[in-house]
């Protein structure tokens, strides 16, 4: 599969808003909370159709998360949204104490994650959320790669009781996953088979990993591309198989290298099938303003940097 734009560019937050609105019509038990960002997170789509089941909690993320837990305890399925920086960062302790610990049926959908939030700069570029959410017992972590996968993830978490964190993006990106694509909780999708090296990507970096595979193919290198949307639970079997069969793994994400998807992959590989792993991500630094696309290039998270890392790992001169 190559990166082709099948039906225009759509941000995963837009697909989230659309799916949530559709779910609202299908299920009466779905309640949505937002913290004054419903226009940006796209929960406003739900609010417009089901105002009785939408509550704006104001600029008060900590209270929003606690309230979500209480609502869920009465038998409701609750989606709580804000920018990921605030839903996860500001309200971390409430997420830990009142969502993860009591195993509340709350889906925290954080938009504007990573550096692709762009111009807003470092204060809004969440680069730690995968790390801090995956370390919480009972919490599940998903990062969809395009609009199609977002719809499937949102439907999957709505149907599966318990806590979940879904990381969503502001930036419009191509819809590139095929019509027959099927997301499953706890499964890695192998988007392209390959024998020489594995590239594991998540969210906005998946399409760049595919482009990197094209570049590598032109040099006679066959790269296996894994879409790690389900970061927790993590598909150990597929990772171990990739480590054994390809012998080298590059990971890439718009997140700190420490603690993110790459770390999760490295943990599995180190314990079950040790092989060299090169993690691409933000190297212990904050982001800065710029367009999302520019920043992805600037911080080395697009195809040239990914293929370069793969070549280096395989011992090819750059």
């Amino acid at each position: 599969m190559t990166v082709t734009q099948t039906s225009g560019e759509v941000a995963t937050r837009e697909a989230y808003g659309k799916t949530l609105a559709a779910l609202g019509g299908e299920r009466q038990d779905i309640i949505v909370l937002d913290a004054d960002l419903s226009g940006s997170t796209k929960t406003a789509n739900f609010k417009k159709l089901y105002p009785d089941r939408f509550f704006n909690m104001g600029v008060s993320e900590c209270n929003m998360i606690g309230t979500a837990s209480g609502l869920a305890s009465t038998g409701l399925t609750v989606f709580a949204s804000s920018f990921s920086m605030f839903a996860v960062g500001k309200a971390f302790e409430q997420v830990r104490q009142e969502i993860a610990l009591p195993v509340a049926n709350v889906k925290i959908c954080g938009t504007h994650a990573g550096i692709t939030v762009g111009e807003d700069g470092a204060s809004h570029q969440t680069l730690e959320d995968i790390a801090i959410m995956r370390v919480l017992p009972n919490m599940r972590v998903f990062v969809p790669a395009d609009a199609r996968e977002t719809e499937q993830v949102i439907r999957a978490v709505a149907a599966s009781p318990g806590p979940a964190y879904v990381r969503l993006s502001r930036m419009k990106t191509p819809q590139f996953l095929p019509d027959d694509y099927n997301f499953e909780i706890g499964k890695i999708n192998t988007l392209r088979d390959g024998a020489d090296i594995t590239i594991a990507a998540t969210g906005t970096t998946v399409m760049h990993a595919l482009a990197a595979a094209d570049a590598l193919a032109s040099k006679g290198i066959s790269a296996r591309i894994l879409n790690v949307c389900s970061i927790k639970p993590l598909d150990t079997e597929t990772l171990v198989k990739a480590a054994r069969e390809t012998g080298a793994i590059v990971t890439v994400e718009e997140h700190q290298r420490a603690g993110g998807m790459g770390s999760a992959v490295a943990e599995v590989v180190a314990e079950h099938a040790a092989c060299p792993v090169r993690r691409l991500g933000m190297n212990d630094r904050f982001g800065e303003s710029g367009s999302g696309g520019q920043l992805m290039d600037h911080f080395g998270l697009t195809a040239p940097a990914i293929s370069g890392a793969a070549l280096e790992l395989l011992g090819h001169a750059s």
Partner: protein
Amino acid sequence: MTPDFQELAIVANELRGDVLRMLQLAGSGHPGGSLGMTDVFTTLWFGGHLKVDPQNPTWEDRDRFVLSNGHICPILYAILARQDYFPREELWTLRKLGSSLQGHPDFHFTKGVDCCTGSLGNGVSVALGMAMGARAQGKNFRVYAGTSDGESQEGQVWEMASAAAHHKVDNLTLLMDRNGIQIDGFTKDVMDQGDLGAKYKSFGWHVQEVDGHDMMAIHQALNEAKKASGKPQLIVCNTVLGKGVSFMENEPGWHGVTPDEEQLKKALDELGLD
């Protein structure tokens, strides 16, 4: 229905005894607030206000009780045991490995606990969500939450206060332990809070203030709170930390220190218990 206040006083006295016994055996925990809120919670649980079914702890239409200042859970555990959620003997295992009674409330371990609390500020938000959940589903249950003056130093409490008033959540009643003491000393010295009732009132709440040891006044305030329409309610309960045990009363040192065997005996003597 008017409760038998003489009977309630006997219950409260025996609950204080259980709180002291369990804390002495545990060797750590918080007696001050537990004893201070005993009369308020006894009126709520044994005065006919809280609609629960100990035989069916997860009954979906039950009233909820959230102890947001979770560290005073010894009094909650003593009440739950007396309500037959679990045998009284379990009280003597508080805070020990394998016990059903954790250092702070956790419903995974303890029947009758509705919310995991312990980190101040969080429980009141969960209580708000429970109350909103009742309304969203057309259910009639009420939510009561214990909170405190010290807890009100958490910013999240005021986020909750804004949201509860804005959304007109009138099936939520907070019972605030206003004993003027927190772990580092008197609240006026640590972080003076002024008139907490007036603050809540300015946020749009229905506010009452009572003597937290006058069970008839507490009973009447709980009844008044149920009548408030369109507003969440706060009952500021003026209490004495360590109430009932002379050497503990109003002494900040007894916020989070447990009695030894000799002190326990002395306290039980004062309460007229064995």
